[in-house]
């Protein structure tokens, strides 16, 4: 399905005019940035557009029935007019039919939706048929993929993908402590640095390093990994975990922890158990597993769980926003189930990897 900008505009106006008509608003001044649309709607002459003939007729009918006027507005002031119907248009018509490509939602639309959503309309994250924006079921996880030994130079490395989120992790160590003052005589020093590539997000980031968010995530990853590494076996040494986000589409923390686990296993660092992580959220009165970026930025609760599958213990639990206790339990349970699924997958990869190593060495 091919949509010309002009067609999109007309569809948007048609759609919006239906809503405005339903709301029975009186005098409405419409602002539109497309001169063509304005001309088509306001002109009294015979319609001569074929691609949007239907829309144009409907709109004209509604405009005649109501005390509405339409004006042209400059591009830089029209986000509000332009963005909202366009986005919703895509949600209703095209979104489910195509692969979700985040670049389709331009940043201004995203900002707009974030700032105006509550006062305007309840966004629909789960369709009546029980499908999410990217076509998943509420309890369905995105495609996950892991790859061990992605980097030749690191002691251990891994790539982990959850849907469109893609993270690369490298482990260096155990090795001599670089900064003598940080050396610990009883256990190994675990360090972690998280960084995002400039191109990882939809709108280009300018200052990726050392901001508060990345410091916080570094800390979360470090704490989660430190809890499972048998640090007491490697006193006076240092283990560095570097996590690089290549693509960000929600669930970054989880993907980072999963990648780090794989990389640590690849490096042969002794661990109590594999830490796996998954997130879950709660939108439209439904618990959703493994939120993507759009769902994550909806502002609803987002529970990230780090889980030790063999010990059946939770090592990390984070949530923002508020949630009734009983629902929280459900959501957390869902996230934990996700963790278990990830754990199974990770175990499979590791086994596969070990088999390969075995065959290489043995034969």
């Amino acid at each position, binding site marked *: 399905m*091919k*949509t010309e*900008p*002009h067609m999109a505009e007309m569809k948007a106006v048609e759609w919006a005019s239906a809503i405005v008509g339903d709301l029975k608003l009186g005098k409405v001044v419409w602002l539109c*940035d*497309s*001169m*063509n649309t304005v001309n088509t709607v306001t002109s009294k002459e015979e319609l001569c557009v074929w691609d949007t003939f239907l829309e144009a007729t409907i709109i004209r009918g509604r405009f005649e029935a109501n005390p509405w006027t339409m004006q042209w507005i*400059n*591009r*830089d002031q029209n986000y509000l007019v332009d963005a909202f119907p366009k986005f919703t248009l895509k949600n209703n018509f095209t979104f489910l039919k195509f692969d979700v*490509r*985040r*670049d*389709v939602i331009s940043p201004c639309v995203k900002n707009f939706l974030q700032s105006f959503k509550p006062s305007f309309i309840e966004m629909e994250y789960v369709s009546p048929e029980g499908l999410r924006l990217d076509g998943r079921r509420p309890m369905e996880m995105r495609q996950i993929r892991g790859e061990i030994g*992605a*980097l*030749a*130079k*690191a002691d251990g*490395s891994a790539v982990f993908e959850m849907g*469109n989120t893609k993270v*690369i*992790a*490298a482990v*260096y160590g155990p090795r001599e402590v*670089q900064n003598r003052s940080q050396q610990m005589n009883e256990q190994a020093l675990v360090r972690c*640095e998280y*960084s995002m*590539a*400039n*191109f*990882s*997000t*939809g709108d*280009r980031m300018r200052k*990726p*390093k*050392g901001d508060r968010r990345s410091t916080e995530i570094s800390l979360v990853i470090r704490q989660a990994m430190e809890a499972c590494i048998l640090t007491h076996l490697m006193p006076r040494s240092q283990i*560095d975990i*570097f*996590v*690089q986000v*290549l*693509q960000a589409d929600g669930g970054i923390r989880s993907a980072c922890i999963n990648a780090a686990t794989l990389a640590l296993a690849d490096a042969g660092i002794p661990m109590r158990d594999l830490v796996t992580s998954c997130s879950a959220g709660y939108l439209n009165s439904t618990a959703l597993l493994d939120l993507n970026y759009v769902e994550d930025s909806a502002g609803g609760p987002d529970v990230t769980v780090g889980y030790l599958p063999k010990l059946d213990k939770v090592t990390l639990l984070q949530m923002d926003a508020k949630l009734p206790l009983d629902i929280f339990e459900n959501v957390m349970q869902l996230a934990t189930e996700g963790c278990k699924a990830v754990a199974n997958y990770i175990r499979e990869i590791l086994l596969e990897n070990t088999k390969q190593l075995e065959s290489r060495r043995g034969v």
Partner: protein
Amino acid sequence: MVGLSLGEKHFIQGGIAQDLRCDGRKRLTYRPIYVETGVIPQANGSARVRMGATDVIASVKAELGKPNPFQPDKGKVSIFVDCSPTAAPTFEGRGGEELSTELSAALHRCLLGGKSGAGAGIDLSSLVVVEGKICWDLYIDGLVVSSDGNLLDALGAAIKAALSNTGIPRVSVAASAPGDDEPEVDISDEEFLQFDTSGVPVIVTLTKVGKHYIVDATTEEESQMSSAVSISINRQGHICGLTKRGGAGVDPSIILDMISVAKHVSEQLLNQLDSEIAAAEAVNEES
């Protein structure tokens, strides 16, 4: 950084002198180049290039902006390189910054031509939407994921591949008053314009070890260099930029000789790269 024993050093130097390097290559042979395009779906164009253990990703993002008042008929291109700590622990924190800025500056010099824009690999005037008012700003981001020498050539190749992969949305401009500073534009979601990347040069780095120079040096070989010259050369065999690394002095005639060697190497590299890119694009089309 590279801890090599005296014996290893001699081995590397001796191998180069005998035209048989540690990994079996000759002095002027590149490692196999693997190109993957479209690796970053959010970007307008992207590519990943691997040469041995060197692994880099380049992405191209286009944003609408205002042209420089001194060059109203040209778009803007900027190149940023980031060295991920995954490549080496020394890049942790701000540790990679120095190398990043050096690589960014070198790429800038090698790919974007002179101040007036002459000799640029990308035709800057093709980025203009409305002269003096709207143009595309291209942000080229390079990320070094793994490093085993010859980063500059790899990044140059990755950027070339990413540019071939880049589609810039078609922009239609509505008629507006001439005094209007921000004319009304409509960005198409479906139609994309491809770049002509035949003019984008390749970068050939010749590393001088002892009396000889080698291409595509690994980290170990780089640690033995006295100096290295990176030359960017386009299809016509014209030099589009040149930088020298390493402080040791070199006789001018040697530099001129290096340039002619690089020119020779670049022809093969260009052909190889072009076929790799075409193959990668074909894979993309299929999937």
